[in-house]
């Protein structure tokens, strides 16, 4: 039962939205959780194992579902928000099916979209059979089979870092922050699935700035014999034997490389979600150079928007991992509770 008699609408039923909804409900606040898909869980439900401890993503999903299993939470799945406006002391929110939701505060947890790898035309995603993305590889891991399009077993596999990240041509100069550690995790998992395989990671810089990331990177080299080549892949083609022909510059050796691979995995970066961008436009919310929601203050107000009563949680403000997302969601809840107390006086 609601103790405070206030309503908060949370948009986005991924990690940030689910965690925040649960925490708000436990604080005695009525929560309407709006999720565009039929199922909550966001990107996590597509993933197999998580870094750094290789936890099964289902464990995180189970935790999050438990979080939103609360009488103060109403779940509107299969719905989106198309607009909102301040009305009196609250906010009037319009859903895609014309429903009006009245809230005292609005929390946007619209998350991120994976970079559409086909935009990097030179890699041939969607054209060459065995060029796949990190998300495609996770789906293979979940099925328990790592196979080529023709059903064969790959023996030489390349992993391309920074696909759509730190890439001016793609319009994204920022680092997606999680692709390096994802690449290391997936490279190790490939070797576990296919012990005779050779794995090559093509990177610009190894950005392993999280707890236990560097240790994973060390293990990947020392225990899993993964080859890390500093250089960006310039183009991909297909040879007469149907193997991928990959051109890359090895910037440490100072020479170009051309190698045949069976499979190439593209580490798709993170971009502001299209839904988030639409809401930013509809609600006149500030976005940063990276197109993610720009918080009111990077140090003291990373959960607050430029419009009164609007808050942010998770990867709609910048690329972040699950640990950071959960912390960010909890911080958003603290800000919202504080805001509601202040405005109700």
């Amino acid at each position, binding site marked *: 039962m609601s103790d405070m008699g206030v309503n908060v609408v949370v948009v986005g039923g991924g990690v940030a939205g689910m965690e925040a909804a649960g925490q708000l409900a436990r604080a005695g606040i009525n929560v309407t959780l709006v999720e565009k898909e039929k199922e909550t869980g966001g990107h996590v439900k597509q993933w197999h194992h998580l870094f750094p401890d290789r936890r099964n993503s289902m464990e995180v999903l189970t935790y999050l579902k438990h979080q939103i299993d609360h009488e103060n939470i109403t779940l509107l799945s299969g719905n989106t928000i198309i607009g909102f406006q301040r009305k009196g002391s609250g906010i009037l929110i319009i859903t895609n099916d014309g429903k009006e939701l009245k809230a005292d505060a609005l929390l946007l947890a619209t998350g991120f979209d994976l970079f559409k790898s*086909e935009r990097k*035309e*030179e890699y*041939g995603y*969607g054209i*060459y059979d065995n060029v796949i993305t990190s998300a495609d590889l996770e789906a293979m891991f979940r099925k328990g089979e790592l196979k080529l399009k023709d059903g064969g077993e790959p023996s030489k596999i390349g992993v391309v870092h920074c696909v759509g990240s730190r890439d001016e041509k793609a319009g994204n100069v920022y680092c997606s922050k999680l692709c390096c550690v994802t690449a290391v995790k997936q490279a190790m998992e490939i070797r576990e699935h296919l012990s005779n395989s050779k794995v090559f990671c093509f990177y610009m810089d190894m950005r392993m700035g999280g707890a236990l990331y560097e240790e994973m990177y060390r293990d990947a080299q020392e225990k899993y014999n993964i080859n890390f080549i500093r250089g960006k892949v310039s183009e991909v083609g297909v*040879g*007469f034997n149907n193997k991928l022909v990959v051109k890359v510059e090895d910037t440490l050796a100072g020479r170009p490389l051309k190698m045949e691979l069976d499979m190439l995995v593209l580490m798709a970066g993170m971009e502001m979600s299209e839904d988030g961008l639409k809401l930013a436009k509809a609600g006149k919310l500030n976005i940063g150079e990276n197109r993610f929601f720009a918080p009111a203050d990077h140090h003291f107000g990373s959960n607050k928007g430029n419009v009164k009563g609007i808050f942010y949680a998770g990867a709609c403000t910048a690329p972040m991992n699950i640990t950071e997302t959960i912390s960010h969601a909890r911080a958003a809840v603290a800000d919202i509770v504080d805001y509601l107390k202040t405005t109700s006086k």
Partner: protein
Amino acid sequence: MEINGKKRIWSEYQKEIADDHFFYVRSCIRQSFFPGSEQFFLNFMRNVLGKDVYENPSHTTCTGIGYHGDIVPFSTIMTVVARHFALMKESGYKNIAISCVTSFGIYTEILETWKHFPEELEKTREYLYKATGREFDIPENMAHTSDIIYKFRNDVAARAKNLLINKLTDEPLKVVEHIGCHYSKMFPRYGVGGAEFPNVLSGMVEAWGGDVVDYPERRHCCGFGFRQYLVQANRGYSISNTTKKFSSMKPFKPDLVLTNCPGCNMFMDKWQYTIREMEGTTYGVDGESIPVLTYEELAGLVMGYNPWDLGLQFHMVQSEPLLRKMGIEFNNEDKYKTKDGRQMPIPENLINV
């Protein structure tokens, strides 16, 4: 390979190509090396499709080879191009049709420069006016002539007498398509299909019944590269690039190479001869070399033109193996005769004959 992936890319790189009333600018070298190509284009456009294509006798080189050879400054080439635009304005045309890929690249580079640096446009207007008293407008539509043949590729197909089918096997001919780097690699939006999977030539091959060969070095330079060749000491680099390209396509056994750039056609044709002379290597089947045709020459063959009227005999690699596959009849006695029947000198050491 997923063709739908390519189609998605092609759909994002469709350019508007004018339908009629073209101000035609020729290439400096095409009339010498492939003398039937521009002639076919003009005949096809004017007499077959009934389009208005105008040539101005005062048109000159764009100086692109000098520009890429570092001897013509950018401000000079901008003024030369501005003069071409002035001739077009004076002639009452708004759609420019460019025969040369080097020129096309020059024009796109200059238009993009003017778009992003309007002060350069103003300076160019001033230079041209001071030098010639002329004024110019920026074209409303700019197309390479391969864009125009692409636009009308189905009109060629509708008049086809010889599709790109190997009549000995009933299989589609395997065609390597090679676009010039300056067609769309600098500014992909100016090219049909973009830069990575261009559609301008592959669209013609598809419409005329052939299969496109996708080989690993498809995007690689033909070997010309201007300074790679123009500086004599660099010519080993030039031919090594061509070698890399042909070595990569050889396992696919292509029946012909189709180009839209004069430099590419010249080098992929003539370096095959040179490599054969230097080390005895050939890249076609049974020790033959691979004919390298322009899109106008191929369109002409498809439409049933006499191969010698199209000027195929002026290539270094002769086209007889291709003509036999396509089932095209030809008379070798006419090969080196002028239109009025006089015998021209017959070159020695012809390849593929």
